[in-house]
């Protein structure tokens, strides 16, 4: 594998950028910025939809939960100032921050918190991700500053789940209008939304941290075309693109002194998903052969300018329990042909490979993989499917052979414990290990259990995990303090400031 001069340039730029971050000028109060986002969200209530479009605008800006992720993915206090776990792991006690106000002026009380978790535990409330609170039997408030979660069994993931975008707290009295008019405790108030055009946030002067935010306001402009987003940044109409700048645009942006590019990590795994219940994928040798046939590094270098990390299981390097398993079935077309012959496909093999229309990275990766598979005698019928169809027929009904998608949820290896998930992978051992991880007495034991799951699915070659794309953000030169990594999908503007 020869490294392209461009890749070397990019790496050099990355190294140069690192010390530059330490030399950021001191924060300045005031000003407003325009941020590009890609689509309208389905409403604004993150407790009613897992859509990332909602989280990108509201997480950390409009809404906050008891705890939250910081820019590095660490869990830090938000509406709770601290927490304690009982020695048996069956009770978690949170202390509520004092003096917090919602954007409508009303104070945050334990009632609002209790109401939130009543909804999260009520299957009829429409609250998403109820599985995150499966171990919680009761939530109560012994006094007006304390919240206690009682559990049926220890739950190591509880704190992590309480930092997720749907774990936010809004005023009990305004629960029904959050969908159209979000009201939270965050540093920015929701000011105006014009569908298909823009969302405006304004500084919340009564924010509990008097130092923040720095900006007076921000406009999120909906620009669906990725190249139009870059053009808008170059023209100065947009100040920040928080994520997913097309890799091929990086060089253009780096050559322009008016803008800067920040390369970070993200939680997505570009995954070639196979229907494990359907021939020929029900044969482990076929799945192994497919994995051996794919040259992942060539894809990252050749199609994405090296902006990503090759992975070997359903885990991105940004995860706390990441383990490198890329050597499980390395690129080896010769071995792939042998395995195919053993499985009875010496004369070749043919199946459908469907690419999701909205996702350029996945489509491009899929096209290269089709070519690589052809070299070991596998012919795929490539087709592009529209997103609604992908969700309905492939994701929900599992009526497909092979597809490719970026799984961007953090900490989502639990999907391999679900036989009804669209991989149709059924291995009870994964569910057992998940339970072990949840009840683990130590962090080390938890990590060990997760790594074991990662290893089992890698050896079973359930899917081909190709790479974890780098998060590419870009901004006008004077913009500082934005997130470079994406530990959770968010464009958090709390600490963003502009030096003109």
């Amino acid at each position: 594998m020869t490294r392209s001069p461009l890749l070397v340039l990019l790496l050099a730029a990355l190294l140069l950028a690192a010390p530059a971050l330490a030399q950021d000028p001191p924060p300045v109060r005031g000003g407003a910025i325009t941020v590009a986002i890609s689509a309208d969200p389905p409403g604004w209530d993150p407790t009613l939809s897992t859509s990332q479009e909602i989280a990108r605008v509201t997480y950390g800006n409009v809404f906050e939960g008891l705890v939250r992720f910081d820019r590095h993915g660490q869990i830090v206090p938000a509406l709770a100032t601290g927490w304690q776990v009982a020695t048996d792991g069956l009770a978690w006690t949170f202390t509520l921050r004092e003096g917090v106000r919602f954007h409508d002026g009303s104070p945050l009380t334990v009632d609002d918190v209790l109401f939130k978790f009543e909804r999260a535990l009520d299957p009829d409330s429409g609250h998403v991700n109820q599985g995150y609170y499966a171990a919680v039997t009761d939530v109560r408030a012994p006094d007006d500053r304390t919240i206690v979660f009682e559990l049926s069994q220890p739950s190591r993931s509880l704190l992590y789940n309480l930092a997720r975008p749907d774990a936010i707290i809004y005023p009990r009295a305004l629960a029904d209008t959050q969908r159209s008019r979000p009201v939270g405790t965050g540093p920015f108030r929701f000011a105006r939304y014009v569908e298909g055009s823009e969302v405006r946030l304004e500084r919340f002067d009564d924010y509990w941290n008097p130092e923040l935010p720095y900006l007076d306001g921000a406009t999120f402009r909906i620009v669906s075309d990725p190249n139009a987003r870059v053009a808008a940044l170059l023209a100065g109409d947009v100040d920040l693109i928080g994520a997913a700048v097309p890799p091929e645009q990086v060089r253009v942006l780096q050559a322009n002194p008016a803008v800067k590019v920040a390369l970070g990590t993200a939680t997505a795994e570009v995954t070639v998903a196979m229907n494990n219940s359907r021939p020929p994928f029900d044969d482990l040798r076929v799945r192994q052969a497919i994995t051996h046939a794919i040259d992942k590094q060539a894809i990252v270098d050749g199609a994405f300018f090296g902006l990503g990390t090759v992975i070997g299981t359903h885990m991105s390097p940004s995860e706390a329990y990441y383990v490198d398993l890329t050597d499980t079935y390395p690129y080896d077309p010769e071995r792939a042909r042998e395995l195919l012959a053993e499985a009875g496909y010496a004369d070749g093999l043919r199946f459908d490979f469907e690419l999701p229309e909205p996702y350029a990275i996945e489509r491009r990766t899929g096209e290269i993989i089709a070519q690589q598979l052809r070299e070991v005698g596998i012919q795929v019928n490539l087709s592009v499917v529209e997103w609604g169809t992908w969700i309905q027929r492939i994701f929900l009904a599992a009526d497909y052979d092979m597809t490719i998608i970026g799984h961007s949820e953090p900490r989502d290896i639990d999907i391999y414990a679900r036989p009804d998930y669209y991989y149709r992978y059924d291995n009870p051992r994964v569910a057992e290990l998940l339970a072990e991880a949840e009840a683990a007495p130590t962090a080390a034991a938890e990590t060990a259990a997760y790594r074991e799951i990662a290893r089992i699915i890698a050896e079973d070659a359930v899917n081909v995990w190709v790479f974890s794309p780098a998060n590419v953000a870009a901004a006008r030169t004077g913009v500082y303090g934005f997130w470079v990594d994406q530990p959770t999908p968010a464009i958090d503007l709390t600490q963003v400031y502009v030096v003109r």
Partner: protein
Amino acid sequence: MTRYLARRALTALVSVWLASVVVFGAVLAVPGDPAALILGMNAAPEALAAMRTQLGLDVPPPERYVRWLGGVLIGDLGESLQYQRPVARLVWDRLGVSVPLAVGAALLATLLAVPVGIFTALRRGSLWDPLVVLASQLGAAIPSFWLALLLILAFAVQLGWLPSGGFPGWDVSVVGSLRALLLPLLALALGQAAVMVRLTRAAMLDVLAQDFVRTARAKGLSPLKVVGKHALRNALVTLVTVFGLALTNVFIGSIVIEQVFSLPGLGRLALTAIGNRDYPLLQGVILLYASTIVLLSFLVDVSYGWLDPRIRYA
């Protein structure tokens, strides 16, 4: 005449109704679950079922269609699944972008194309003629979205004169909104003008070759009068047809242009509705598109009689 108008109006209504049936059927035939698109990839099956009930998707399609049609007749287009707002209001908001864009582009195209078309017809055989024909051929061949990108690169990125996209809204800034529409207008109008130059030139050449023009010249009328009073008047029927077609073309063409310039117009609303399987919204938008196109062709037909009294309606 009255009978003709009544018959044309009835045909128009039936066309619009047929369009609504076709759209309803087409949307049903495409797989995709609005509930799943609203709740996101990681939603639980129970939440999906609840959302389907809430959206009224458990009602059989024929019944849904009849309910919807009943609503349309009393002016109620239903509520958008994604935005949870009345479709009529969403569509109305978007017209503030799409109507100025389409009418402006059609007018601009006409103002550019008709003088150039007449000029080249009169200068037939000169150096100008092949030059304009070549330019118009090129203009007609360039896709509008590509022209749009070139315009953005030149006027927004390089020169910084105009915004690269977005729309501030008429209530926020009239000047800003006009500036935001300028490049999209150009991108739409230039391609359309290229087509119209050729049609105008052909229509004028046709008329100029006729006997009455020769007579007019022979009796010593000034060239301006020959062209303005005799030739142009007779070419108008063709030109109105062309203008009507242009309006329809830019109305449809604006779907792509709104996407490139991130304008909150009707076309982008239609694309969002398709992507999210927002049935009521999609039906409302298509109904409006169909009605507009049918109405335009109706108006063009009716205008013939007014422009040329020789045309009689049987």
